[in-house]
C-alpha cells in the first residue's frame, strides 16, 4: 500500500478492479482457449465463456471491494430498530 490516504483508496480500488478484471478475463481467455482447443474442438464459445467468467469474477470482486457490507448491515438493523420503535 503505497499511499494510506483515504482519498487514494477509491483510485486504488478502481485500479485493482480493472487489473483484477483484466487478469481474470485474460485467464478466462486462456483457459477458454485451452478448453476450446482441447475439449471443444476449436469452438469459440469456451473462450467467450472464459472471458465472460473472468469478467464476471472480476466484476464481482470489484463490487465486493467497493461495498461495505458491515455498514449496510448496520444500516438495515438501525432501520429495523427504528421501524420496531
Amino acid at each position, binding site marked *: 500500500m503505497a499511499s494510506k490516504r*483515504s482519498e487514494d483508496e*477509491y483510485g486504488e480500488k478502481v485500479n485493482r478492479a480493472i487489473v483484477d478484471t483484466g487478469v481474470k478475463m485474460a485467464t478466462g481467455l486462456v483457459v477458454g482457449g485451452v478448453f476450446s482447443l482441447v475439449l471443444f474442438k476449436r469452438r469459440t464459445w469456451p473462450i467467450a465463456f472464459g472471458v465472460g467468467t473472468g469478467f464476471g469474477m472480476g*466484476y464481482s470482486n470489484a*463490487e465486493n471491494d467497493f461495498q461495505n457490507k458491515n455498514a449496510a448491515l448496520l444500516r438495515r438493523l438501525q432501520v429495523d430498530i427504528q421501524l420496531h420503535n
Partner: protein
Amino acid sequence: MWRAAARGVAPRIKSSTVVKPLQQRCMSSGVPQKKGGKLKWFILLPSAALGGVAAYGEFVDPEVKKLMEENVYSPFQEYVYKPVMDMIAGSGKPAEEEQKPLVKVIPAKPVEKKPEPEKTAVKAPASPVPAAPAQPQPAGMSAKEREKLDIEQKLQQQREKEKAENTALESKLQELMNVCKTGLQEASEIQNEVISAVKKHAQALQTAMDDKTDILNKEGQWNAVTEAFQKRGVVTDNAKKVMDSLRLEKEKLKAMVEEARNNKSTKSNKILNQAQEAYNTVSSKLNAIESAIAKSESENRGLVKFNDLVEEGKKKFQKELESLMPDVKPGKGKKLSEEELNSLIAHAHRRIEQLQHQLANHLALEKERIQEALDMQRKADESVCDRRIEDEAQKIKNNVDLEKQKWGEEARVQFEVELRQQLARQAAAHSDHLQEVLKVQEQELLQKYERQFNLKFIEERQAFQAEIAGWVARLKGIETAVENRAAAEKIAREAQDLWLACLALNGTIRRGKEEELAWEERLKPLGNEIVAVYDAAGNHPFVNMIVSTIPEKAYVRGVWTEDTLRERFEKVSSVCKKVAAIDECGGTLYKYFISYLQSVFISLRSYDVKNLNDQVDVESMDNFEILANASYWMDRGDFEAAVRYMNQLQGEARKVAGDWLKEAKLLLETRQAAFALTAFASASGLGTVF
C-alpha cells in the same frame, strides 16, 4: 703542438704562453716596486683601523664603543693625557703652596750646627702640604663646596704648619738639650780635671817649695811644677772653652724657648717646660762648676802668690848677686875666689840684716797685715758668696719661673676642665629646663589640638553621615528601581522567550520540513518546539493547559502544513465528487459508475456559496453543495470554513475525505493552541513593554 714537436718542427705556440723575463713582467704592471714604502702603511693602517672601529662604535654598535673605552681611551687618558695636563697646569697654584710652608719653617728656627735634622724635619711637613692643594678638584662641585674644601685645606695646612713648627722646635730643643747635657758632662769632667790639675799644681808647688829633703831633685820638682802649671793652663783653657760653648748653647736654648713662648703656634708645647728645666739645670750646674773652679783657683792663688813672691825674691837675690859679682855664674864647677866669697858673705849678712829688719817690720805689722788679709779674704769670700747667692737666686728664680709656668699650665688646664664642667652643667640645666618647658607646651598644644580635632571631626562626621544617608537612600531607591527593572526585564525576557518559542512553533506548524518534497515527509514532530514553549513559560498554568490540549500526534509525528493540505484537498475534493452520491454502505459498481457519471456533469461552481455567518442547514446540503462550499472557501483561503464544510460530508465521501479531515482537524487544533500561546506571549510581552 706535440705532434708538431714529434714531427721535428718547431711548435706553433701562442704568443701569450711565452714566458716573459722578470723585468718585463714587473714593468708590465706599470709601477716599479720600492723597498722603503712599507713604513707609512705601519702608521696609516692602524690609525685607519682605529678610526674605523671608533666610527663603527659611535654610530652602529655601542658595545664596541664600550670595549674601546675600556681598553683604549681610558689607559690613554690616564697615562698620557692627564700627566701632560698636570704638567701644564701644575706649574701654577700648587707650586706656590709648596713654597710657602718651606719658606716659613726655615727662618723660624735657624740652627747652624745641625742642618740635616732640620732639613728632614722640614721636608716631612712640606710633603703632605703640597699634596693637599695639588689634589685635582673634582669637576662639578658647587662654589660653596669648593670654598669649604679650600677652607678645610687651609686649616689643614695651618695645622700641619704648626705641627711642623712644633716638631721642628721639639727636635731642635731636643738637640740643644742633648748638646747641653753632653756639654755639661764634659764641663763637669773638665771641672774635675781642672780642679785636679790645680790641686796637682799646688801640690807640686808645695813640694817644690817646702820639701827640704829631696834637694837634689829640686829641679825635677820645679819641672814638675812647670809641667803641672802648663797642664793646668791647658786644662783651664779647655774648660773655659767648653764652658763658653756651653754658655752659648744655654743662651741659644733660652732664646729659643723665649721665642717659642712668644710664637702663638708653639706656645703650648710641653717640651718648652722641659727645655726650661734643662736650661735651668744647665745654668745652675754651669755656675756651680764655675764657682767650684773659681773656688779651687782662689784657694790655690795664695799658694801661687807665695810661690811668685819666692820666685821674685830669688830672682832679686840672684840679680843682686849678679850685680855684685857679674862674672860669677852659679852652677859652674869653678871655685870662687876668696874676695868673691867675702863679698858674698858680706852681702849675705847685709841681706840677712835687711831681712831681719823686714821681718821685724812684718811681725809688727803682722796683725794688721793679717787683718788686711782677712779683710781681703772676707771680701773675696763675700764676692764668692755674692756670686753664689746670685747663682742661687738665679737658680731659684728660674725654678720659680718654671714652677710658675707649670702652675700656670696646670691652672689653665684645670680651669679649662672646670669651665667645661660648669658649661656642661649649665647646658644640662638648660636642656632640662627646655625639656620641661617643651613638655608642658606639648601637653597644652596636644589638648588644644585634640579639642579642635574632635570638634572638627564630629562636624565632618555628621556632614559625612548626612551625605552618606542621602546616598544610601538614593542607592536604595536605585536598587529597588533596578530590581524592578530587572524583574520587569526578566518577565520581558521570559515573555520574549515564550514569544520566540511560540513563533518557532507557529513557524514549524506553518512550514514543517521544507526541504522534503513528499507531503508525508514534511511532517515535523512538534515535540521540541512545544517543550521549548513549555520551558520558556516557566510553570504558567495557562501555558500548561494549552500545551496539554495539543494532541499527541502533533508531538510525535508532526502536523500537516496548510499548504500541503490545500494541495491534497484538490485530489480529495475530486475523489469526493466522484463518490458523492454513495452512502456509507458502499455500493455496487453500478452505483459507483452512476455517481461518477453524475460528477462528470456537475460543476461545483454552479452552486451558490453560503456566507460564513449564515446559519447553515446541514441536512439539506448534499455532498455536492458541501463540496462546492468547501472548495470555494478553500480557494478564498479560509481553511477553517472549508474544513467545517468538509466535516459535513456524508457517506462514502466522508470516508474518502476522512484522512484529510483528520489531518486538517489536527492542524487546526494545533494551530489554535499555537495561536493561543502566541496571543498569550504577545499579551504578556506587551504588558512588559509598557
